[in-house]
């Protein structure tokens, strides 16, 4: 006999879905299909997102980006999550979530500043209610809980969305964040993009749980399992969870089943740890193809609209390419400007030393030219 009132927190046996891989509607009695406008917008965001992603990968080949972790194949998660958020909500992304950030409206060049290497974060987090992309795994989940709790204490109805990967769920910080969020009933939605791998480590070496969504009940929060390549479903599940949180009913853990089509980053060699056949199988479940097919079959998408989307994507990619081909202006002084809010004598001194060193250096360069 299982604990009754807690059982409602377990995920469904099958991932929840609205649109199947073949583009046909999935029978889902208790989930409403988002309206045509929303669906079309999700497709547009994915088309733009993927084009951005391929452009970024291209920039690594041209040496314009030090490194880039592609999220190709995860468009439905990244875009579905952001589309469900209000402007006043906060996003806590990882290094993998560049597409989500572009979808959030952040200038793509500013998104790529971290990976180009001219600074650690290129945008103003407050302007877009988006935290810096987080590198130390799972640590961002706690920041999301803290911000959400502070917003609630301040009487706002802001919701925080924390993104993390399947591997990050093994970290202690994820546990502490889920637990504290539940105890405080903080308005947070945890979106786990389960793309099957943590660099080279497959999910089977990461957890023994039937699904990661099964962790929710252990914190007294709903665990929701969705098809992560179904943008409509991700959007619907995120919307449900965000509304729940906004209404003061606490956090939700969502596991979105998806797949990382590219290697971990351009520097990684995925052939060392997975079969091409696996990739091929997932390509057949492509998130863009299925939504496009559904929209066409249902007369929501015509060639004009599709052309508009691809034009927008191409235009943005072109502007990004152009901007990234210009060398960023660097200022070594900045190394010392933001270590403390109140500058310290020691750092002012060190800044002076470096400035002198660089001046002397330029001088000797000039000499040589003379």
């Amino acid at each position, binding site marked *: 006999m299982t604990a009754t009132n807690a059982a409602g927190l377990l995920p469904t046996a099958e991932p929840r879905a609205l649109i199947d891989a073949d583009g046909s509607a999935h029978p889902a009695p208790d989930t409403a299909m988002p309206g045509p406008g929303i669906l079309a917008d999700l497709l547009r965001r994915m088309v733009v997102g993927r084009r951005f992603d391929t452009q970024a990968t291209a920039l690594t080949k041209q040496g314009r980006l030090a490194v880039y972790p592609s999220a190709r194949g995860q468009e439905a998660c990244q875009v579905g999550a952001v589309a469900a958020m209000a402007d006043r909500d906060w996003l806590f992304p990882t290094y993998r979530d560049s597409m989500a950030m572009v979808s959030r409206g952040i200038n793509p060049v500013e998104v790529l500043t971290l990976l180009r290497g001219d600074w650690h974060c290129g945008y103003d987090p407050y302007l877009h209610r988006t935290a810096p992309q987080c590198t130390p795994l799972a640590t961002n989940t706690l920041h999301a809980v803290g911000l959400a709790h502070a917003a609630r*204490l301040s009487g706002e109805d802001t919701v925080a969305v924390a993104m993390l990967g399947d591997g990050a769920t093994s970290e202690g910080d994820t546990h502490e964040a889920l637990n504290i969020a539940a105890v405080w009933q903080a308005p947070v939605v945890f979106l786990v993009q389960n793309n099957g791998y943590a660099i080279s480590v497959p999910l089977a070496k990461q957890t023994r749980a039937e699904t990661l969504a099964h962790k929710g009940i252990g914190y007294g929060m709903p665990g929701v399992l969705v098809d992560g390549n179904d943008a409509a479903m991700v959007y619907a599940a995120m919307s449900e969870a965000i509304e729940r949180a906004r209404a003061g009913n606490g956090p939700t853990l969502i596991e979105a089943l998806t797949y990382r089509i590219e290697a971990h980053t351009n520097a990684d060699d995925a052939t060392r740890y997975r079969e091409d056949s696996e990739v091929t199988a997932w390509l057949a479940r492509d998130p863009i193809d299925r939504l496009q097919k559904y929209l066409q079959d249902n007369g929501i998408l015509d060639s004009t609209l599709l052309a508009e989307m691809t034009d927008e994507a191409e235009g943005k990619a072109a502007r990004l390419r152009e901007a990234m081909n210009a060398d960023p202006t660097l200022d070594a002084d900045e190394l010392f400007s933001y270590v403390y809010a109140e500058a310290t004598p020691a750092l002012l001194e060190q800044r002076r030393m470096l400035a002198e060193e660089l001046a002397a250096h330029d001088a000797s360069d000039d000499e040589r030219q003379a």
Partner: protein
Amino acid sequence: MTATVAQASELTMAGALNRALADELAGNDRVVVYGEDVGPLGGVFRVTDGLASRFGDGRVFDSPLAEAGIVGTAIGMAMHGMRPVVEMQFDAFSYPAFEQITSHLAKLHNRTRGRITLPVVIRIPFGGGIGGVEHHCDSSEAYWVHTPGLKVVAPGTASDAYWLLRQAIASDDPVIFLEPKRRYWAKEELSDAPVAEFGQAFVRRTGTDVTLIGYGSMVTTLLETAEAAAQEGISAEVIDLRSLSPFDDLTTVASVRKTGRAVVVHEASGFAGFGAEIAARLTERCFHQLHAPIGRVTGFDIPYPPPMLEEHHLPSVDRILDAIDRLQFDDEPVMPRG
């Protein structure tokens, strides 16, 4: 920054810290206090005694038992404009939060070109001398001072504890606030203003022959040592650092250039302890005025001892006097030690 201090009086350091928290909570509704057992219990050292009932559990509350969680959520709260003051119950229990402190709390301001400021204060009862079992008596300052982006302070007296904590909460930078737990019950009259700016050291006793430098629990020990040294005809100047990072070069260098001799003292193990930085930087700046290498009196390079053996580990007046004697006074007229 004066408020209720008008009716000053003798306070223990724990009481002074409690009043500083109360005054900040009363004066700024963005200040929140949380951690393990800081609510109804008032903290294991009673530093937060009565605050939860006075300010309500939206301002002062118990968190789940998770240090990384406490610091990680404090970062998120500060991003939203709050000024969290969180407690790590004992030194060693701040270590689970090490990643959140070093990789985020210390770096987010820099990461975002100053757009995010994190006015978070992490209170840590530090050091030994109370007969505590293992893990309850560490001195972790060396870890924090080596981490750019953190400010690290340690009061030596009750009155300074009050003012330093208020200055720490007012600071827009993250502050590691180290409370010398063995001095929690030492009393002092509350001064009606700080003895120095945030970030500055303070000369607690002036002298001419040697400079004694310390912080936290060692301030009292250094003053006792200076008293004993005076009996032996040695005039010792005592500097209470107050702020470990940033470091006050002006005050310390001026003193060492004047006396030409110095002894640096702390409870923490000596090897790569903070005393090494103090000795190294003062030597760099005072080399030609020094009559002898700067002495260090510190804990041994061992894990903190069990209660019955800790007396051997902690810097004592005698050990500091011996260190002073080793500073090659022979060339000068000094009374031989009793």
